[in-house]
């Protein structure tokens, strides 16, 4: 990613103390180390607990009263159980589908609109840009939103999880800012060579903005995967639930999963089962996290500073 026009570092590469800076005091360093360690522990501990408990064997769970920090005899039985069909497996499939389809559609429409709004002289682009920016300041409200989705006949349809959140205005502003930063000369050279708007988009703009498109795509994917309230609002049929709703019912509200819901004969302990569901919901995020981290500070900052 090039051409931001300002440094996009969030860390100063500082290997050594400059000569003018006084050496750190012993107490100061120790205090800093303690605070940093505590913060990291508080952040990581819940994840560790969940992971360990989901891997623990029945014997360990009963001995420790439900929680294991270091399983001695890890087993994947809980995962095998919830993934062998039944309500959890179905929810995972639904969530994956919605995330894939939703992200693809969101990216296509957002790129299209951002590109059209980044070119000068397109009739109507000024009012449309204002129309988009206005949506950043307000929200229409839950009840009218529900009524519109209902009157469009989208209730209990998977489209209700995609269409109402198709374009995020903030992502649109980030993309448009990036497209406008591409040097004007490139556009002009392409036009002289006889390329139209469409070819310029596919041959020049998109190859140059792979990075920022990746950021926006990741953001969309995370949002679709994490969608909870819209699913609760628009889907009444529990057979259509995405993973977050299953998580709420069986982990947050602590309902027990019965063997016929999972379609198996013998059951691992509930505690391991619910922790395995938590891990399932977490896995895609953990898988995407390295990429998110690599790009997202750049994406966010472009939007924040140039938006």
């Amino acid at each position, binding site marked *: 990613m090039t051409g931001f026009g300002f440094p996009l570092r*969030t860390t100063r590469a500082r290997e050594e103390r400059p000569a003018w800076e006084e050496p750190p005091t012993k107490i100061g360093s120790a205090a800093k180390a303690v605070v940093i360690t505590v913060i990291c522990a508080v952040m990581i501990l819940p994840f560790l607990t969940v992971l360990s408990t989901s891997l623990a064997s029945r014997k360990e769970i009963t001995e420790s009263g439900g929680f294991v920090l270091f399983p001695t005899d890890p087993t994947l039985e809980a995962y095998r159980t919830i993934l062998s069909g039944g309500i959890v497996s179905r929810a995972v499939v639904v969530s994956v589908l919605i995330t894939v389809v939703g992200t693809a559609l969101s990216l296509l429409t957002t790129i299209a609109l951002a590109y059209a709004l980044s070119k000068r002289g397109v009739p109507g682009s000024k009012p449309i840009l204002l129309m988009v920016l206005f*949506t950043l300041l307000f*929200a*229409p*409200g839950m009840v009218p939103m529900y009524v519109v989705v209902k009157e469009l006949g989208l209730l209990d349809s998977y489209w209700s999880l995609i269409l109402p959140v198709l374009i995020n205005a903030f992502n649109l502003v980030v993309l448009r800012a990036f497209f406008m930063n591409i040097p004007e000369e490139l556009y002009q050279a392409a036009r002289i060579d006889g390329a139209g708007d469409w070819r310029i988009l596919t041959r020049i703009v998109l190859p140059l903005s792979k990075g920022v498109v990746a950021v926006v795509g990741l953001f969309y994917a995370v949002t679709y995967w994490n969608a909870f309230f819209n699913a609760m609002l628009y889907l009444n049929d529990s057979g259509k639930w995405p993973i977050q709703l299953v998580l709420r019912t069986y982990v947050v509200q602590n309902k027990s999963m019965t063997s016929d819901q999972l379609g198996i004969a013998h059951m691992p302990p509930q505690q391991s089962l619910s922790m395995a569901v938590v891990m399932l919901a977490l896995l895609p995020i953990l898988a995407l996290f390295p990429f998110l981290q690599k790009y997202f500070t750049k994406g966010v900052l472009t939007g924040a500073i140039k938006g």
Partner: protein
Amino acid sequence: MTSPATRRRPQAASPPASESRTTSNSPSPGPGSQLRLRAPLRVRLRNNWVMLALMAPGVLFFIGFFYVPMLGNVIAFQDYQPFIGFKDSPLVGLANFQELFADPAFWESVRNTLAFAALQLIFFFPAPLALALLINSLVSPRVKKFVQSVVYLPHFISWVLVVALFQQVLGGAGLFSNYLRDHGMSPLDVMSDPSTFPLLITGQVIWKDIGWGMIIYLAALANVDQSLYESAAVDGAGRWRRMWHVTLPAVRGVTIMLLVLRLGDVLSVGFEQFLLQRDAVGARAAEVLDTYIYYHGVVYGDWGVGAAAGLVKGVIGALMIWGANKVAHAFGEHGVYSK
């Protein structure tokens, strides 16, 4: 938010005055000429048909799922009946608002909302800045990177997961209570205790979003000219004086911008978070404006009153943003949008 378009002011929306009128029928000069004359609209529409086609789906989305629901707020003034639709439901004037303001549960939810917002402003708002200053003061880049990765992660997990994780650690059957039980003390169930609920909520918000909030501060700090620190040190400013006179002024603009945004959002304190935990601690402790709107408007089907509450919330939020921005301008800061 000022759009990049504002930096390119020269091309005004109105056609240039006298000189263009004589040449308006000639085709517009090619790209690269500095003096752009406006081609007639017909020509511009024909030349840009690809762009107009690319715009269509996005524009349809914003109309259908933002502007139509915006107009749908008319439900607040209607006796809305689902089977007729909001085009034909009878108007009832301000009856919904009267009903809303006469409902003690509404005022309780407003009070709760403001209390939670105040807590978040006091405890959550400064936290990312404090953490950014701490991380910025570390010398080793490797430690910096590691700590950043650790604190970013929770932002990307859903509220359902956050609540589930907190339950596993702090709930009645959780890690903490088990530990207490094993050591002969009485277990604490933090997750269902209404009296500690405000602290729990604030703790969850800090846990989830401190890293996210920190990014923008770190960027501002990374852009501080290092020679400022050196000259301050040469002039005899110690560690704390340097922070006060160099570091903090560097993040002042960003802080004020975020504060204005936060104030504009004062009536939204994290809807999913409350919805998920309302059953455990009871409605009295956890009912905020958003959950009130959900339960009254959607669950009980009291559409008009729910929409009225949403409208009140939206109008107050807009006024807050506007007012906070005015204050920011008065202090000579940018705020969220420029004048």
